[in-house]
């Protein structure tokens, strides 16, 4: 892959927005657009990135960009793609940037439809693990134990009781031409995957972990570091699905401490050792499955 920090486009396509300090989602959008370039058409649903980027008359996308309905990222991407194709225009990239709620909850049906049709679009889910724009409510990608404003940590219930949905494998189950997971903590890997996806025809799905310091309860200069740590401790993994098979891009020989990862975040502050053991056990179970079904790259 040709793109790295040195060769990356110097132009800013997502600039002058009012995202929170240390916002992981805005970093994912900014970097992906630098990889995709000025002929990309971005579709963003109602959510953090549209809320911070599209306030008339202060419109901050340097490339073409449009807000879709909350549920309609993928279906609007289809319309953009089909509308240009009908006019004989093919040298562009229709790219969606939707959060975890916009993807795994309200936008899942439209995304499934687009993958089923194999429309030539790239869908990037920036996963900050809750509805952050509305003030940190649980989504189906909020991890077990996390405190949100709709999963309070009290005496009877200690935060979110459910495990995170696996959107990457859901996308893959459609037999999509290309799907990948990424983390903004491993930015070269993310850039390479965006570049690779842009060269594949049909539907592409990239799921990038993009921490939200506000919602996770970490300092705003810790975003990249914690995005790395979630991979290193094995609670997230870097993988691809291509030509009908899964491959793992990074298989840590030894995981870093889950407890340390958990303890540094405000959203997990209430968890006890037993809760952390539940998290570690489910991590190990997932890696057992990965080792069985994913090939090593």
């Amino acid at each position, binding site marked *: 892959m040709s793109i790295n920090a040195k060769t990356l486009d110097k132009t800013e396509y997502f600039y002058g927005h009012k995202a929170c300090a240390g916002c992981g989602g805005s970093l994912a959008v900014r970097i992906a657009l630098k990889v995709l370039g000025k002929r990309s058409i971005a579709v963003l649903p109602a959510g953090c990135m549209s809320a911070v980027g599209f306030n008339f008359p202060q419109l901050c996308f340097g490339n073409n960009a449009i807000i879709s309905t909350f549920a309609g990222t993928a279906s609007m991407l289809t319309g*953009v793609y089909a509308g240009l194709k009908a006019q004989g225009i093919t040298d562009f990239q229709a790219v969606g940037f939707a959060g975890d709620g916009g993807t795994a909850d309200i936008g899942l049906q439209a995304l499934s439809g687009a993958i089923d049709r194999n429309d030539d679009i790239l869908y990037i889910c920036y996963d900050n693990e809750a509805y952050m724009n509305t003030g940190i409510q649980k989504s189906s990608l909020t991890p077990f134990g996390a405190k949100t404003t709709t999963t309070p940590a009290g005496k009877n219930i200690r935060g979110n009781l459910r495990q995170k949905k696996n959107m990457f494998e859901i996308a893959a189950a459609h037999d999509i031409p290309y799907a990948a997971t990424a983390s903004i903590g491993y930015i070269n890997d993310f850039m390479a995957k965006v570049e690779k996806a842009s060269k594949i025809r049909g539907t592409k799905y990239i799921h990038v972990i993009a921490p939200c310091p506000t919602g996770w309860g970490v300092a705003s200069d810790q975003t990249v570091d914690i995005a790395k740590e979630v991979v290193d401790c094995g609670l997230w993994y870097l993988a691809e699905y291509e030509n009908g098979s899964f491959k793992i891009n990074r298989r840590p020989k030894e995981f870093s401490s889950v407890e340390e990862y958990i303890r540094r975040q405000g959203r997990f502050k209430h968890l006890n050792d037993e809760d952390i053991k539940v998290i570690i056990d489910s991590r190990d179970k997932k890696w057992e499955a990965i080792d069985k079904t994913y090939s090593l790259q």
Partner: protein
Amino acid sequence: MAKKFLSGNEAFAEGIRLARPQVISAYPITPQTIVVERLSEMVEDKSLESEFIHVESEHSALSCAMGASAVGARAFTATSSQGLLYMAEGLYYASGGRFPIVMMNANRSTALPWNIYGDQRDSLSQLDSGWIQSYAENAQEALDMALMSYYIAEHKDVSTPYMANLDGFVLTHTYEVVDVPEREQADRFLPKFTTDNKLDLENPRNLAFSAGPDHNYIFKYKEHEGLLNAAKVIDEAEEKFADIFGRRYTGLIETYKTEDAERIIITLGSISGLVKETVNKLREKDEKVGVVRIRYMRPFPGKEIAEAVKNASHIAVLEKDISFGNEGTVYTNVNSALHRFGADVRSSDYIGGLGGKNISSADIEDIFERIKNDDTEVRFLGIGGEEN
């Protein structure tokens, strides 16, 4: 022109074929389904070149049409009833974005109870969504409206989506002999879609943004202006249409024997034919009765209606709709116009045809009889009403 024996749905699909939409997002729902079936066949046999998208829901149907319109492509979709309600969020979105999409709606009752037959509660519940709304009387008008819809919606002074309503089954599934224009004539009538309101790869734009209170207010005013402008563009389109095709339409309303009428029924859609026939019957008995058929509910022809009925003594609105706890929505609109434009006429409201319940000529005669009295009432045909 070729004469063909077509249902309302098929006639509408023929009109859309002639309008050459570049993207069609299709999802089935009774009684609209035949429209997207015919269009898929036209794409297959290459009589229509279009990207035909099998969306997974009505919400996505409209979202996809908006994406296509936002890159400057002519887009079409169709729906009915629950489907229209499911995409309701998108209705406001499309009009606010000023995307001149055309959608056919087969008027059908809304659940509960479930019912697939025709009434107009679906589209009339969406009058405030910022779309042009037309109501066809017959298959020929349905075809002609399909072709004219893009002319009106895409006009620079309008830039507003267009919802063409056809009564479910009564119009969508009934066959008539229809004149189908030639492609060459249609191309002469309808210019290619061009717009500045689009994402442009050479000059990137940000569209469908947020706007705070001060700007928002102005955008909404402009949207209202666009819909009002549609009235003059409808006249312009019908003038040009008459020049090319020889069929002349009458703008926002059609009047039938209203000049000297003392009693007038104001209605819309396919029931108008029966009301006209009943008027003919009563005219033979020297009863001075007439009909105003509303062709467009938005922009609303308030002034035109007031002008048409100002010399009558009593009017009745006959509608397949009820705003529960109040009265029929058409009645609300009509009464406001009578008051605003100074037509001093008594008025009553007759609700009928809900869930496809038949309205007979005897029902219509009964309405004309009842409004000889001075009562102003809201009455369910065959059931009753409020006591006055």
